[in-house]
């Protein structure tokens, strides 16, 4: 989902779907909390998305994984609603919820019948204003998160390999560690670490709230003023200071696991979402891997039978991050052969560029992705929030079509040559441990 949200904007202008920029009502509460409201009366439901500007990039060794752990702790009791009651009360009101943590943000999502809007404000205000960190809940939640970490490593080869590749590629920046954190840190952080995190990062001025659905804007604003506005602001968090130094040469990592064929990840340093090259990189990712006719799928899976599955991801992040290529080899294919075949395809783009038809294809794909994203109230809320946080202003989304349209075949070729160099890459292979 992450990589598709730009499309969103493209389409709003191009297709003039029902939602327009004027439908997004923006408010800033006295404590600095930002509120976006979109009325959508298509179903009798609504949602509330809370985007907190805190993720694993705000951590340091010793407290890796704390942002994610905190996401769990936000469900474990506050002043008015004690441990377990947040979910009990919400579900009894017909609502449900989820949350996710990334390197950059922590997002809480509440979905509910529109008639339960006030219950949701009450619940959120309680935990934002008065979280109670209960010792016993901290201990049992450690077990939950260790289980979550473990099941990710058990079931996903990508998880296992990507953690090592990121750590090799990111020499200095906090994107170096996995969002879930290191096992040692999960077992060791203290209540004081949590309290400090809450005070600094869960201040209302560090949050954007989005409400979309069968609601009246005035009523939402009134409830926000009643429930959220009294929560005091806090000094803004310290910015993340570390800048990843340019890579000086190729880095390689090997990870052992009982796999039936090698898994391969090749990652390149690329700029953050606000860099002008973002749009060309996003389109390049689609040209490489979206659909069976994409460059890599066609060549590596269907023509040469070297891979069985592959993915590419252009990051959307606050700081410069990695463009990832993940390949699963066909049985009997050596990692080195698959890697070499990938470079051949990449070099074709670096040397010959892409065709106008390919460029048009990925622009068409973006349009359809957008339609699908805004078809639901949740798609609208999530995309507005991402735009606000990653591009700095939700209004920016209405500029994006122009920026996407401006991307030319020459731009694609240029970014391929700028970023996809051997010196700038980290290569990881997941293979069975050789028998002695």
């Amino acid at each position, binding site marked *: 989902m992450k990589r598709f949200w730009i499309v969103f904007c493209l389409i709003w202008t191009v297709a003039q779907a029902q939602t327009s920029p004027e439908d997004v009502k923006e408010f800033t509460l006295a404590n600095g909390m930002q509120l976006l409201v979109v009325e959508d009366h298509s179903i*009798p439901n609504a949602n509330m998305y809370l985007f907190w500007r805190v993720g694993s990039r705000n951590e340091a060794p010793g407290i890796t994984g704390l942002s994610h752990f905190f996401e769990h702790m936000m469900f474990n009791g506050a002043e008015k609603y004690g441990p377990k009651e947040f979910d009990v009360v919400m*579900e009894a009101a017909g609502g449900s919820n*989820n949350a996710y943590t990334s390197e950059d943000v922590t997002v809480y999502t509440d979905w509910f019948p529109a008639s339960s809007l006030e219950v949701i404000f009450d619940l959120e205000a309680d935990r934002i204003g008065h979280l109670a960190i209960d010792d016993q809940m901290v201990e049992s939640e450690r*077990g939950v*998160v260790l289980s979550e970490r473990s099941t990710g490593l058990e*079931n996903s080869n990508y998880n296992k390999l990507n953690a090592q590749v990121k750590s090799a590629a990111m020499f200095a920046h906090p994107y170096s560690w996995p969002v879930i954190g290191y096992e040692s840190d999960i077992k060791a952080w203290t209540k004081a670490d949590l309290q400090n995190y809450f005070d600094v990062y869960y201040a209302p001025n560090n949050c954007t709230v989005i409400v979309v659905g069968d609601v009246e804007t005035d009523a939402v604003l009134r409830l926000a003023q009643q429930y959220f506005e009294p929560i005091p602001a806090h000094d803004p968090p310290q910015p993340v200071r570390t800048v990843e130094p340019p890579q000086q040469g190729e880095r390689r990592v090997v990870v052992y696991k009982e796999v039936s064929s090698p898994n391969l990840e090749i990652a390149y340093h690329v700029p953050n979402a606000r860099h002008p090259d973002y749009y060309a990189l996003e389109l390049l990712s689609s040209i490489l891997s979206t659909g069976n006719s994409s460059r890599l799928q066609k060549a590596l899976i269907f023509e040469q*039978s070297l891979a069985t599955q592959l993915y590419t991801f252009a990051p959307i992040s606050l700081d410069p991050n990695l463009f990832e290529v993940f390949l699963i080899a*066909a049985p009997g294919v050596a990692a080195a052969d698959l890697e070499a075949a990938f470079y051949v395809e990449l070099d074709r783009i670096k040397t010959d560029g892409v065709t106008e038809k390919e460029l048009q294809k990925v622009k068409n794909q973006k*349009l359809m992705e957008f339609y*699908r994203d805004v078809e639901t109230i949740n798609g609208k809320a999530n995309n507005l929030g991402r735009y606000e946080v990653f591009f700095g202003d939700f209004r920016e989304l209405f500029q994006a079509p122009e920026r996407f349209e401006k991307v030319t075949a020459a731009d694609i070729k240029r970014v391929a040559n700028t970023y996809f160099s051997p010196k700038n890459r980290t290569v990881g292979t997941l293979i069975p441990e050789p028998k002695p």
Partner: protein
Amino acid sequence: MKRNLIFTVLVLLAGTVVAQSAFTLPKYEKYRLKNGLTVYLMEQHEVPVIYLNMVFRAGAVLDGERAGLASFTAEALKYGTENYTKSEIEETVDFLGSEFYTGAVKEYAYAYTYFNKRQQADILKVFGEVVRAPSFDSEEFEKGKKRKLARMKQAKESPRGVIDAYWDKFIYGTHPYGNTAYGDQTGVQSLTVEDLRAFYAAHFSPQDAAIAVVGDFKTADMKKRLDQMFKDWKGSKAKTRNAVAPINLEFDRSRVLLVNKNDSRETRFYIGGKGVPRDHPDYVGIQVINTILGGRFTSWLNAELRINSGLSYGARSRFSTHRLTGSFNIASFTKTATTVEAIDLALKVLARLHNEGPDEKTLSSAKNYIKGGFPTDYETSGELAALLTDFFIFGFDEDYIDSFQKKVDALDRKAAQEIIRKYFPKENLQFVLVGKGEEIREQIRKYGEITEKQITAPGY
């Protein structure tokens, strides 16, 4: 990272129903073409997109001795037609920003696409040829076969992706409902392109198929287009509706399937037994009770295994339904060392459901919860198209949607107790565990007679 993703998924799968404000199914039209093809049309104009879902009674239950036959046949529909090669189909679909999937699950094969309404003529032309006149190119078949075999092997590296296949095989045995939708390595290895052609010829026919189109179109116009696409389609004459023999899923003893995975760090387990068919008259009530047991974050299972004990990231229960029957299971996972502790706790929760049942407050909360989430399950045109073809395959209709709220509201404690007693397994439970055999084998003998398999062995 997601806190309780499994619950989101569960709700979607379970098809929970109607909300506080009256939610009824949007208007649609159903009719049959002269050749017998059933058509559902529903206009939805929020975005300029059209979703098309076509189903055929040609699912994996018809695999016979050749596991994977139905699924491979459906996937290979896209390997070429009279006028398009496989690549040309893909290029057309990709260029328009569409997606086009074909495949098979247990009880039906499907062809699914969505597209920008401005490009409907191009996509419909490809779609029509693919389902009516596939060529089953033999070179593409051989390459596809290699890919399928490789992926089946790789899939075993993720227990959560394959435990369902082990469960169904263990529960249903040799009955066709035990067939894994995508087959197994032995079955797929044995298939030839002629097998696919023969299967297509025997089972893809208008009288055993339905098409649902939902989205931004005018009904009269879409009717003309569909008529044009399908009027000359004859297909096979065979009726396959009753091809699956009835089954009475009863167990006279507890059994355990241990799937050994040497490098496991955790045990993933299912516990359960007999369930209900999809069109069961008590299906709604069963969903309400299951919400309490294992269908939401505060469910009793998740509360015990996650919230109170920290043994697992999540625990849930669900009813998997088919046309003639279904199964029920509790599912969770925990680190190898706490396998027995977690299973015992899950069994204790199930016993509590039978011995105590929910109190008034819990029942009322579950009813609100299940009604509150319902409209979002049918929010998109794609979800609505899938619902309409489910009507055709499983034999229910919009009454399920429109009466849902009423049925939920009507469920009192007495009815709840009755549903628990009748439909939630209590004795002779069945267990499937994927984990490290040498560390758990002895401890789990107490649950029943053990059968052991190696996860790396072909099949399930």
